[in-house]
């Protein structure tokens, strides 16, 4: 808007000064334009995180909430616990096992999503150009539909009274239903299912630009199909692999709905452990400290992603 007016103001004598003034005004206007968005985000996303950081250093109230006095108990309880009988210190096995399960399941989800997503993205990228948007649309549709509904769809399929078990039992393959729901398997299946599009899309983006002359050169030099895949295609789409993996890993680590619905009460992940502290646990400082721990892990993964993205960006330009 304002930048269109700037050139006409640059008259002969004080041209430079007027230009600088116009630019200053332009930048001020731009900050004004951005201010509603910034205010909302500060008020309802960023600011509350800062308050939570403060809360993690306070004492817990006996019925939830906090007491306004400094304490490191929240952070202390993330990994350690004091024995209620003899007051000795030990690792908080419960928390550690939930951390471990979250990492394990998120990693497993990423690997399975990659194993499924890589061939799919490759398949789409090698279709004729007019068919690709249709396939991409089919991948994107589930992504924009409600996550809870998709998780619920998986739940219906794998329940003891669900379609899979009913079918297998009526075929006589099994005599009693296989317990799939409320297991780690169910959580992982659910997460692969809901986050698969996040793997396929970046993979596709890097495969679309794949230079098939290099693939052809590989075959000319008597490479096998596997050899070409391993030594030409995979190295060239590596940025897509890393991007997709992080885009799946990060939401898996912070998953709340999927483990709650498919994992039942026992198979908790970090998200559910955090919720517990604000519900029955009544330990807000611990919940806040756990949230910030999760946030830090996610930020480290995203930082890795950004660095990778900017590196590969430089490579493609140069």
């Amino acid at each position, binding site marked *: 808007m304002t930048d269109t007016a700037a050139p006409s103001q640059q008259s002969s004598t004080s041209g430079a000064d007027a230009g600088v003034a116009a630019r200053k005004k332009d930048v001020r206007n731009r900050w004004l334009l951005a201010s509603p968005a910034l205010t909302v985000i500060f008020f309802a996303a960023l600011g509350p*995180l800062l308050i939570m950081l403060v809360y993690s250093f306070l004492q817990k109230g006996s019925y939830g909430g906090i007491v306004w006095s400094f304490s490191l108990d929240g952070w202390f309880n993330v990994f350690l616990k004091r024995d209620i009988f003899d007051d000795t210190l030990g690792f908080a096995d419960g928390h550690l096992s939930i951390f471990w399960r979250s990492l394990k399941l998120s990693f497993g989800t990423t690997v399975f999503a990659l194993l499924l997503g890589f061939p799919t993205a490759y398949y789409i990228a090698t279709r004729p150009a007019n068919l690709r948007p249709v396939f991409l649309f089919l991948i994107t549709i589930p992504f*924009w539909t409600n996550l809870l509904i998709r998780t619920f769809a998986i739940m219906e399929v794998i329940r003891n009274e669900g379609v899979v078990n009913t079918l297998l039992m009526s075929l006589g393959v099994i005599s009693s239903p296989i317990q799939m729901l409320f297991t780690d398997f169910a959580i992982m299946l659910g997460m692969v299912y809901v986050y698969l599009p996040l793997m396929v899309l970046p993979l596709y983006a890097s495969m679309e630009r794949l230079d098939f002359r290099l693939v052809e050169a590989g075959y000319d030099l008597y490479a096998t199909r596997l050899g070409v895949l391993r030594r030409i295609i995979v190295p060239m789409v590596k940025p897509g692999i890393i991007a997709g993996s992080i885009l799946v890993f990060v939401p898996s680590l912070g998953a709340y709905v999927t483990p709650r619905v498919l994992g039942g009460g026992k198979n908790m992940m970090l998200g559910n452990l955090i919720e517990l502290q604000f519900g029955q646990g009544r330990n807000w400082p611990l919940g806040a400290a756990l949230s910030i721990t999760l946030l830090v892990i996610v930020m480290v993964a995203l930082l890795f992603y950004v660095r990778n993205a900017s590196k590969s960006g430089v490579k493609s330009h140069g």
Partner: protein
Amino acid sequence: MADASAKPFSIKRQTGFGFIALCCFVLLYTPILILVLYSFNAGTSIAIWEGFSWRWYEAAWQNERVVDASITSLKIAASAAFLATVCATLAALATTRTEPYRGITAIYAAINQPLMVPEIVTAVALLIFFAMIKVYTGYQGLAYLIIAHTAFCIPFAYLPIRARLENMDLSLERAAADLYANPWQTFRHVTLPLMAPGILAGAMLAFVISLDDVVITEFVKSGGQDTLPTYMLGQLRRVITPEINAISTVFLAISVAVVTVFFLLNRKGSSSS
């Protein structure tokens, strides 16, 4: 190309990839299709088919809590989508078509912040913050949910609007300025109409994202403020009847319709520019 039939050896083929892709699509769609199918089940089971019926749709329609939750969902989604789109439009104008200026990276980072923080973390942070405000003001209304939804909808509304602005031709605005339109007139009669498809796309994405949210709503809501997703989450702990399937199916239909329109809009937009 190498696909031509003259050469039986296709360099693009990889053994088994087509099959895995097929599995991938089957995996993505089978559970949803089963969910939709059983919403029409005449029986009370979600696994044994007993014939076609609309009874669960009728049951959902007559369930007062479902109707209330739907109205709450729509109220929040409409308000949040509107506010987020206004904020995102202004922010997109602030951050495109310019030389980098001091703080522009900070603005980008702030706008995209809700995308990077895990939802559960934002949810508990909002729970803490709004609990403080509730104690001070005593206000319990929908405004908390609306502002929380607006915040995480802004990045989704921002992306298509920004993309649209960046691909826009500057010459029309220059022409308007040359014809003595003041900046406001230029904006009103040239820039805004050109941006419209992006704004519409952004508003629709924001609407769908707000409608779908479970986690933040679950933590921020006060009593009696169930949205459709949080109502469903509560129901999953009980005995499940195809009524949930019926609600889900309607929900899915709305999302798919909005997203399809969004895609068509986007394709038209990109082909015209």
